[in-house]
């Protein structure tokens, strides 16, 4: 059974139809790259999965359970709970500037476990939880190579380091599927490598990920499946070999040709 099933997602902003019926499935441990030119709807699709946009129609099924249907009504709380199945790393990092690196990672897990607990926790229990979360956060930050920067503020870090903090922050919520929205687009070329390396390590650790990206080389080498989107529909879907090696659609061919032109 597929881990994620996306069915018939439509989304319009005013008169513009951004997504015109998106269907795809993905398996556990799979890395799915979504490519396509700007305005093709790939970021909107990712935002729909994270409930930052509400699809006008369609459904999302996770592990055989329908978690979202555009016809359904959901409370804020329900949306919040469903959203936690997905993590999202933004193009512009969106770290909390007033908090240290460690605090950026700990804040949300703490709030979730302490404030949303069914009963009132004693001070001791709270400290216990905070310590657990902090220990876990240190571990994650070490795994993305930031053990030296725990007490720094985001403004003191390079873009690549900030993006790695953002990845750690998303991982701390233990999402089923981790999504990346053009994670290297805001970075200087020499800094993209360190972020892509972290994503590669996550793949090797078996993490399920969806990656909206302009890095064709990376999509080809790191993804298990590739979606090419154009004008709000999935124009081509397949393994990297199929999509990059022998694309069938005209639009894919012309997009890939242009992308390659840019490289050389």
């Amino acid at each position, binding site marked *: 059974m597929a881990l994620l099933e996306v069915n018939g997602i439509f989304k319009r902003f005013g008169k513009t139809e951004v997504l015109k019926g998106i269907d795809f499935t993905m398996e556990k441990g799979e890395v799915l790259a979504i490519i396509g030119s700007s305005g093709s709807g790939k970021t909107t699709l990712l935002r729909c999965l994270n409930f930052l946009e509400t699809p006008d129609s369609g459904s999302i099924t996770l592990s055989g359970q329908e978690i979202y249907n555009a016809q359904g009504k959901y409370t*804020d709380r329900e949306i919040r709970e469903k*959203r936690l199945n997905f993590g999202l790393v933004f193009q512009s990092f*969106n770290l*909390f*500037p007033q908090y240290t690196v460690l605090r950026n990672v700990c804040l949300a897990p703490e709030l979730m476990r302490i404030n949303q607990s069914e009963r009132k926790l004693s001070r001791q229990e709270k400290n216990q939880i905070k310590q657990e979360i902090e220990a876990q956060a240190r571990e994650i930050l070490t795994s993305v190579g930031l053990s030296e920067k725990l007490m720094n*503020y*985001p*403004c003191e870090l390079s873009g690549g380091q900030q993006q790695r903090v953002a990845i750690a922050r998303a991982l701390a919520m233990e999402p089923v599927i981790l999504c990346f929205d053009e994670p290297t687009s805001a970075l200087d070329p020499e800094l993209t490598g360190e972020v892509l390396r972290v994503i590669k390590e996550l793949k090797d650790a078996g993490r399920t990920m969806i990656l909206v990206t302009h890095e064709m080389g990376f999509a080809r080498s790191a993804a298990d499946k590739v979606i090419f989107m154009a004008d709000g529909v999935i124009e081509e879907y397949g393994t990297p070999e199929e999509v990059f090696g022998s694309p069938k659609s005209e639009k894919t061919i012309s997009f890939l040709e242009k992308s390659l032109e840019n490289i050389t």
Partner: protein
Amino acid sequence: MSFLEVTAQLANGFLTTLLIFGVTLVGAIPLGLLITLGSMSKVQPIKWIFKVFVWIIRGTPLMLQIILVFYGPGLMGLGVKFDRLVAVILAFIINYACYFSEIYRGGIESIPRGQYEAGQVLGMTKAQIFFKVVLFQVVKRIVPPMGNEIITLVKDTSLARVIAVVELVKAAENIVSLKSLIWPLFYVGAFYLLFTGIVTLLLNYAEKKLNYYQG
């Protein structure tokens, strides 16, 4: 009238000035936040009620508002009458809360959407995002414009004399008219300069403290 006697009388007026200043700040800072929330409400009627209210308060002289709060309830037969000082402070709190609310609104709207979205995808509630993520960043951004308003407030307290509350200027004026002395007026100026000087130093300190991060 000796220098010491003048000082004692002015100091008395200054205490009233200080009281108006302090209580207004304590009342208007939180009330301003409430007005901000109202004027940013997604419920259109609530939003417009608050917007019109802010328009009226900001669009009419504070002096008029003081007079109205003091004489209004009695003349309208509401059966309540405020003490002079209470009336002044009420008018000040409402007036300043409206100005503050607009500064807050500007501050809140200047926080990038990405901050809210980052909180959302991490499963935070709206209240958590506001209090744990946004509020502090807003505070940092609004210190300079708030400083302006607070310094204006120091001097606006002199409007209290319109309903015969003896604050600093009124105290000086009493001396000037009774004793035909001119120098107490300059002396009063020095009081204000000292007061605003201290407030400026405190604001600079706050700004510096909040500057530990950029962005």
